[in-house]
């Protein structure tokens, strides 16, 4: 919520303008609207100012100013997050890193690069492409999301099944600590001595400071790839196939599941070639050396057929491969064709429990009078049930959040976790006690206090609230024009 009186806001604007230049600050309400939410649009919060530093020194100066003024602050990348993690829930300053988007150094011999946090994930891989390299962690939002955001959330993506998540690809970080000091954690050389503060910082959701330089591992593009689409008449068959593939000792590079609702939306939007009448499909990618790839593919096909696949297609060329992936990666966007809004969920379960949990999700969602579309990283048990709903219908949002909580409970009950890659942020802080004891949370709080003793750096995230600020209190408030029906959200 905005906390400053207009006079103070003007003063803040001038002070920040002196640090980053007058065109690097937004304080007008209309300007601040864009920065009210991330990709999880159900939650909104307004900053007092949004600032766009261009260097580490400017980031540090903004943090120092925030401290002097007693204002909270939170870093923001592209705002594609799906847990409300960059929302300024207590007002203050949003420090947007989008102007710090350079590749500072690429070292192909040592297979690393040094980048700024505002660099778009896919842009890094594209820059490395001509040399035959890429940056492996590939969140589905990689066309827009930034490396800094990836670090904050320890982002995953479909290919992290084989190649690991963000933390497995970060060697070092230059960090502006919440008190404004700049420090290097780790670096270019492997196995730095002492505690793994880099590993601790990755996934800390912007509560330990702001990464201003990132040393990442880059890897060679695999020489050969085979992408298959397995089609099933029953969801159960598809989910059993996932564990069957794993049990055969195969390590696909990616193993994604898409259900009927999602397939139909995707086909309407993109004509990716998915069969509209399938109950579920598995998108399976194998990569590596060409020698042996066919054999691996044969084993995967066998696993699919043994579990009832009615068809298994292999992409014949790169164009077909890209189309299959487009269908998967743009699925979220395609939901707009079948529903005015959708609530993206993120949970993890052991792969072997997939069939039963998918059935439970169907039951839970139906019991709340809603629909769900599933498109997710089946290979590592990372579920993304997308609850489809209409925010204009009274009470619907509340039912969505209730269904979501029940789904998270189901994941926990089978030994899973409440977040596979989107983070806790704002959305799930009150679910943390489902998987962590008081002592567990106290240890995390103790570590947080080392970095962020005042709590001013991204407050209100990750930890459960003592007073119950239920997510519903920050829920979507329709603009008066929308409430009257004069305009409509897309």
């Amino acid at each position, binding site marked *: 919520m905005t906390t400053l009186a207009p006079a103070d806001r003007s003063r803040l604007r001038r002070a920040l303008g002196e640090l980053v230049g007058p065109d690097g600050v937004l304080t007008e309400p209309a300007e601040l609207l864009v920065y009210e939410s991330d990709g999880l649009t159900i939650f909104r919060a307004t900053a007092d100012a949004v600032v766009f530093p261009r260097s580490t020194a400017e980031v540090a100066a903004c943090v120092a100013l925030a401290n002097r003024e007693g204002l909270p602050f939170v870093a923001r990348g592209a705002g594609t997050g799906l847990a409300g993690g960059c929302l300024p829930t207590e007002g203050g300053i949003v420090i947007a890193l989008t102007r710090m988007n350079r590749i500072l150094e690429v070292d192909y011999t040592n297979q690393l690069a040094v980048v700024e946090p505002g660099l778009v994930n896919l842009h890094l891989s594209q820059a490395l492409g001509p040399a035959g390299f890429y940056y492996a962690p590939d969140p589905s939002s990689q066309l827009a999301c930034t490396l800094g955001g990836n670090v904050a959330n320890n982002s995953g993506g479909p290919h992290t099944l084989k190649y690991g998540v963000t933390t497995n690809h970060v060697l070092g970080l230059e960090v502006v600590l919440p008190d404004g000091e700049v420090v290097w954690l780790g670096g270019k050389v492997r*196995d730095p001595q*002492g505690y793994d503060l880099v590993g601790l910082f990755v996934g800390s959701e912007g509560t330990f400071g702001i990464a201003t330089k990132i040393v990442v591992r880059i890897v060679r593009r695999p020489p050969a790839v085979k992408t298959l689409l397995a089609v099933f008449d029953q969801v159960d068959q598809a989910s059993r196939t996932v564990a069957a593939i794993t049990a055969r000792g195969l390590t696909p590079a990616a193993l994604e599941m898409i259900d009927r609702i999602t397939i139909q939306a995707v086909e309407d939007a993109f004509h990716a070639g998915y069969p509209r009448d399938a109950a579920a499909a598995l998108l399976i990618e194998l990569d590596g050396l060409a020698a042996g790839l066919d054999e691996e593919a044969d084993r995967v096909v066998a696993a699919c057929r043994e579990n009832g696949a009615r068809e298994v297609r292999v992409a014949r060329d790169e164009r077909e491969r890209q189309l299959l992936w487009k269908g998967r990666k743009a699925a979220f966007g395609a939901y707009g064709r079948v529903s005015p809004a959708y609530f993206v969920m993120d949970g993890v379960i052991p792969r072997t429990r997939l069939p039963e949990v998918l059935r439970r999700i169907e039951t839970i969602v139906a019991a709340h009078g809603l629909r769900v579309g599933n498109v997710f990283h089946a290979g590592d048990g990372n579920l993304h049930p997308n609850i489809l709903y209409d925010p204009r219908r009274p009470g619907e949002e509340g039912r969505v959040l209730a269904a979501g909580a029940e789904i998270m409970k189901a994941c926990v009950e089978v030994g899973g976790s409440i977040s596979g890659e989107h983070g806790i942020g704002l959305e799930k802080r009150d679910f943390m006690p489902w998987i962590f004891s008081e002592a567990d949370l106290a240890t995390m709080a103790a*570590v947080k206090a080392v970095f962020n003793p005042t709590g001013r750096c991204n407050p209100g995230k990750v930890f459960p609230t003592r007073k119950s600020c239920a997510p519903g209190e920050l829920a979507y408030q329709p603009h008066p024009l929308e409430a009257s029906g004069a305009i409509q959200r897309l």
Partner: protein
Amino acid sequence: MPVLIRSLVDAVGSAHVREGAACAAFAIDGRAPRAAVFPASPDELAAVMRVAAAARVPVVPWGGGTEMLVGAPPPADALVVGTGRLTAVLEHEPGDLTATVEAGLTMEALQAALGVRGQWVPLDPPAPARSTLGGVLATNRSGPRRQLYGTARDLVLGLRVVTADGELVRAGGRVVKNVAGYDLAKLYLGSRGTLGIIVEATVKLRPRPEAEAACWGSFATLADAARAAAALAGGELGPTALELLDGGGAAVTGRAAAVPVPAEPAVLVTFDGLGTTVAWQQAAAARELGAAGASAVARLDAPATRRALEAVREIRTLIPGMVAVARAGVLPSDLVTYLGEVAAAAAEAGLGLAVAAHAGQGLATLAFASDHPAVDATAGALARCRAAARARGGHLALEAASIGVREACPTWDPPGPAGELMRAVKARLDPAGLLNPGRFVGGI
């Protein structure tokens, strides 16, 4: 009976508390512990820690005892807490490729248990018959196969830890993707027991490879071998392990592995996976090594590959007259010039040298030997090697050395700018300074 001992007996039973001569085996650098205690379970270990905390007695966690001579000596009259009775395999779900086990299992016992279902945890640290999973994770030990499989930070999904005040806490979880809360497991891994005692771990598994094979390429000079290794590291073959050996390293490991190779600088490149792929990789590697000017290329079958990797992994144990072992890290591209300086330092100090380096990682094990060990000469050589590594932005730590050498040459580098943060984390999680105090980086 002193109060402390009585409390420990209450916690674990008198049969599992050893004092005096019975715990002489747990002395470190001539400092005997006050007692050595062996709890049966995580709960008992937590109870022991509560006793120690109440009495403000420093604690030295003890797994297999294979890394106890690293760092400054422990405080006098500490309490050794052994994890050797924590050996339960709590869960092994082959379809999930995960397992949750107690930390006192030796690596060998752990791999045997997992092997029953054709799986393994792809960690190959030294001394698997004695080192425990908890100890391996606490010291972040790894082996040559880290080139493909990574290290503990890439394989651990969750931990249970006994804290300095005797609570049992959980970090991470049991599933392969998990970003709920802070990644505290990363903090405990490699922390050498200074932030908590690891009692349980959930690890990622892989299927046991169907095939393994390797090439051993011998070269006239280390520089030639290093160039060949760099080409393999930057290529497409995806080796499991890529080791660069100097003449000394090649001599001892080749002999120990019973692989007929010359005592010349060498590249050992190994592969594992599908039979078809491995055969292709081995042939391609042999061609590349030949093209890079190898004087000889030996092809190793699966058993020979395993023996060779074991020998490289255990190189510390193969050096007669060993006086010190250090581990240095530099950029892979700096390895060959760095190793040249290491060789010069050893020669000037009159020390023998054997080197085995993970060529793709820039990490080198340096083993120094002498018939007439002299602390000053050894410490001097180590100091030069440290300076040379740090000048390249790298690091050097002592892995094995007499107390005399460790007094003359610190085990760890000076901590650097992040040291303050590390000390602050330690102060928060172990304010009384009871967990393995004084042995770690920055005097922690």
